[in-house]
């Protein structure tokens, strides 16, 4: 069943001037029952973004929507001459998976409003699980062959799902950035959500860390995700993503991460 969903969250403050803060999420596509949503924005090592990008490609997901806002930078992506929104929504109907892939760093308030719009949309379909892959920069990444994945969740039934997933449960501490706000909002609405955080280079694109994330995501959703093409193209990706990594570090100097 096809449908169109469009939502705008508005906050206007009038003093001597008017600031309008809004995020519009426009989705034209199927409404799935109890889907899985996987979402990432640029963060430490771009690990979450690289993982979601790889899932979109390997599962041949179809683009069905985008998010836009006055708070987002005046930028469009270009692929083979065609412009596209840097924050896009994808679907794989067979596997009942939605993916949100953000290719621009978003400052704090933008993330809050983007989260509200995304949650209003996905909440209607009562998702089985929201997965939030991200990276945490570690000083000794150079000496780590296989980066470890850390897991956090908002409900006990999600903890059960995570039992058979590679990685360690975060015992205590704090998570910041997009996964934190999404987890908080999911908790408020009673939506099951988990974040998977991988050790990575803080400010260098890290496809190796994304491979560890993909292994965990694959186990969590029960869908095989082939990673050999990502490993083969690792150096090309690192070159291609240098600019985005540089901008991400400037726009969000406190990168999403974990403080234990």
């Amino acid at each position: 069943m096809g449908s169109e969903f469009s939502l705008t969250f508005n906050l206007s403050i009038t003093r001597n001037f008017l600031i309008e803060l809004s995020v519009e999420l426009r989705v034209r596509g199927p409404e799935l029952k109890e889907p899985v949503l996987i979402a990432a924005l640029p963060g430490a090592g771009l690990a979450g973004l690289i993982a979601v990008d790889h899932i979109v490609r390997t599962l041949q997901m179809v683009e069905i929507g985008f998010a836009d806002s006055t708070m987002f930078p005046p930028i469009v992506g270009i692929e083979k001459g065609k412009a596209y929104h840097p924050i896009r929504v994808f679907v794989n109907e067979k596997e009942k998976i939605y993916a949100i892939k953000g290719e621009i760093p978003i400052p704090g308030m933008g993330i809050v409003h983007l989260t509200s719009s995304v949650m209003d949309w996905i909440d209607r379909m009562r998702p089985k699980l929201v997965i939030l892959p991200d990276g945490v920069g570690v000083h000794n990444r150079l000496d780590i062959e296989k980066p470890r994945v850390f897991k956090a969740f908002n409900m006990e039934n999600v903890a059960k799902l995570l039992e058979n997933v590679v990685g360690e449960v975060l015992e205590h501490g704090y998570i910041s950035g997009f996964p934190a706000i999404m987890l908080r909002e999911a908790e408020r609405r009673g939506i099951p959500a988990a974040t998977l955080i991988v050790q990575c280079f803080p400010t260098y694109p890290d496809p190796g860390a994304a491979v560890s994330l993909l292994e965990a995501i694959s186990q969590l959703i029960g869908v095989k995700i082939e990673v050999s093409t990502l490993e083969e193209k690792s150096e090309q990706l690192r070159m291609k993503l240098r600019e985005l990594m540089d901008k991400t570090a400037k726009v969000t100097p406190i990168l999403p991460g974990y403080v234990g």
Partner: protein
Amino acid sequence: MSIERIWREIWTFISFRPGGIEPLHEVEVGRDNVRITVDLPGVRKEDVKLEISEIAVRLEAVCSIAGEGICYKKEIELPVEVDPSGAKARLRGGVLEIVIPIKGRKFHSVKVE
């Protein structure tokens, strides 16, 4: 400064300067050392030319990625004076790490009477 102008400045593309690609790098000043890392995808250690003075690090590296020749060039000014004779460098997975002792930070223990 308007938000739009801030965005424009942040998103000014810097990598297409003539004379080589500027790699991403980080400088951390520790208690006794300065640690510099440089992201050099595709580079092997034998293809790195590294020079260190008391106030700066200069490097050049070449490699080929997917058949395309790449030349990295970077000069990094250091925030403190260092002792280049004590510098150590290693390359792992295309990331170069340089550790250089800070000048005048060699401590000798003194007995208190």
